[in-house]
């Protein structure tokens, strides 16, 4: 299954003007733990999908929120010339297609 079919919410957002943060949330413990135990959400995978260096990626497994979080520096600072997503809200798409067996 694709991650988008298991998650109840996948979103991206500015965490201030310089950082993008990504949240992946689940409707129940079962789906959250299934993805967690798959071991497929990793810093390496995220860095590959978002073309950034692994050392710049932060990754958190938040059990009490049934959520995963990634954060990375914005490729273009919010509002600088060339930035096409002022609120950072449409950057999560590559996460949707991650295959979770």
């Amino acid at each position, binding site marked *: 299954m694709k991650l988008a079919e298991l998650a109840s919410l996948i979103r991206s*957002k*500015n*965490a*201030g*003007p*310089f*950082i993008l*943060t990504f*949240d992946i*949330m689940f409707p129940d413990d079962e789906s959250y733990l299934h993805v967690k135990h798959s071991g497929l959400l990793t810093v390496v995978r995220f860095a590959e*999908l*978002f*073309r950034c260096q692994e050392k*710049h990626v*932060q990754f*958190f497994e*938040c059990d*009490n*929120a*049934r*959520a995963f*979080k990634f*954060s990375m*520096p914005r*490729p*273009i*600072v*919010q*509002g*600088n*010339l*060339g*930035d*096409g*997503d*002022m*609120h950072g809200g*449409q*950057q999560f*798409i*590559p996460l949707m297609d991650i295959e979770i067996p």
Partner: protein
Amino acid sequence: MDEIRYVAASGALGVGVDAEALDKSLDFRPHFIASDAGTTDAGPFALGSGTAAFPREAVKRDLTRVLVASRKANIPALIGSAGTAGGDPHVEWVLDIAREIAQENALSLRTAVIRSEQNPDYLLGLYREGRVRALDPAPQLDDTVFARSARIVGMMGVEPLQEALDAGADFVLAGRCSDPALFAALPIMRGFPQGLAWHAGKVTECGTMACEGPHGGVITATVRQHEVILRPVGEGLGCTPQSVAAHSLYENAHPYLHKECSGTLDLTQSKYTAIDDVSVRITGSEFIPSNDYTVKLEGAELVGFQSIMIGGIRDPFILRRLDQWLSEVKTYIYGAVERVLSLRPPDWTLTVHVYGRNAVMGALEPYTSAIPHEVGIVVETTAATQELATKAAQLSRQPFLHHGVPEWTSGTTSFACLHNPAHINRGAVYRFNLNHVAVPRTKTEMFRTEFVHLGRAPR
């Protein structure tokens, strides 16, 4: 005093305050009402230009509801990050609205106005003493950044708010302010644990966003020595342990650690339990005081002035080799602007956003191989003056219209302009230029409090 109760009226003043829910929340006998009014989320323009992101009427409507409710209950009202960016013009703008509200509603408000805009020379002094530190990631800093900024604000913590409350303010109107600080100020002042007070503020600063259910309503918090109770007021709204836990992720790079002026809120050990269908108890949140008192700086500087041109391309012969075609058009435009205006990059900038292809994700776009049947194009020309930006946009139109398509013999018009004139003048464009903290010599020197009286004379 065994607890502090409060109401968070709105996630952002100007977006809406649910008047019915706010009125009903007064039954809960709150000790104060507060609402955040600012954010950097809209972009650098508000800070740079000194204007707000919401219309005056919307802010007036919301602030009226907050001030009338607070006077009805005879409790203080706190508004932070006034006018979106919390600079001096933003504070003046909201103060003027509040003055009007006080007169129209026969309110009497002893008002503490706390300004947080920073003097560039003062900041340069701190910088030279090594008292300005970069966060990660941060733009390159040098000693010209302060003077060339259009505006810089410092984000206040609880201390200036507490001084204002202690001096008996009915209404605290704060410039740029940590969102949770608005809510944590009074509980901390009354001796409640900092971890719980800050965490309550963190959850409630976005209004009912930490709840499940429809939009609207207000959220209330009760801060005690060993717990915080969160409870929304509004039809169909409820907090659940998961909704509250999940909210601490929102717009934060780190889910558990949140830096404030005086230390770090640590949610690693926080526990969330349901009390009933709509209320949640938080325990275990900690606050780790820092050795240095640090104030986050936000700055915006002028990039230039901008014009844009919007249009579309439908011709499949162009679309199948779009990058090449755009590159040729850009080269032609750079040449034309240099010949006519004697301008070369970086003295002007040409930016092209291709909707239908990668305008939204830019370099991060994973799907670039498919050939779209149509693309929308936004051309931005940015230069030191509006006149030059406009002229560069005018010089961009003909190359987009008539650049050749080898598959056709000649004389094609390839760009479907949306408007006449094709360009739109956008005015000033700003950028954020600081992701730094200042280490002031004293906790209060960066913020200036003035007491003013609004409305009818005090009895």
